């Protein structure tokens, strides 16, 4: 079995937008995860979710990967963009829309 960081890398490289969260988009298990899902639902761009509650290795591994102590975490185009507060702030300022649009129009990373 590959290491947590290899699995994280592979997930964020094969999906333009990845949300590491508690629960899933239909049943978020935490208010901050729910708020982040809400933003991406409003954006309407396709996104992948990973339920960290179902995988302890990923839950801890993703915190190390991004040097970020909390869940949710959002990756766009393979890059860590932020947690719930940052995503909401970027959405309100319109920057998130630009980041997503750029990511969607760029060719797949591999």
């Amino acid at each position, binding site marked *: 079995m590959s290491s947590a960081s290899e699995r994280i890398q592979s997930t964020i490289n094969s999906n333009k937008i990845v949300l590491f969260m508690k629960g899933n988009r239909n049943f978020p298990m935490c208010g901050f995860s729910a708020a982040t899902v809400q933003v991406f639902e409003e954006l309407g761009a396709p996104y992948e979710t990973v339920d960290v509650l179902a995988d302890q290795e990923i839950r801890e591994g993703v915190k190390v990967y991004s040097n*970020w*102590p*909390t869940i949710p975490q959002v990756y766009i185009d393979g890059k860590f963009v932020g947690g719930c*507060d*940052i995503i909401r*702030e970027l959405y309100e300022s319109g920057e998130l829309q630009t980041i997503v649009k750029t990511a969607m129009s760029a060719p797949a990373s591999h």
Partner: protein
Amino acid sequence: MDPMELQQMIERALPGAHVEVRDTTGGGDHFEALVVSENFEGKGLVERHQAVYGALGDAMRARVHALTLKTLTPSQYQNRR
């Protein structure tokens, strides 16, 4: 934990910062913080939040369940008022 304790930890790591911490539930583990610091100048949001998380160290993992953060430079703070 006490919001004042969190505030002091952030102030120690970011000297000169203006820090406001509020316990959002009264339970001592959900907090909201506003941090205004010159150190944030020229830095992205991820780096700013990482600086605050870094200040809290192990407390962030062990004693703080949730921390809603707002990080501003002094000029951004002025513009908001």
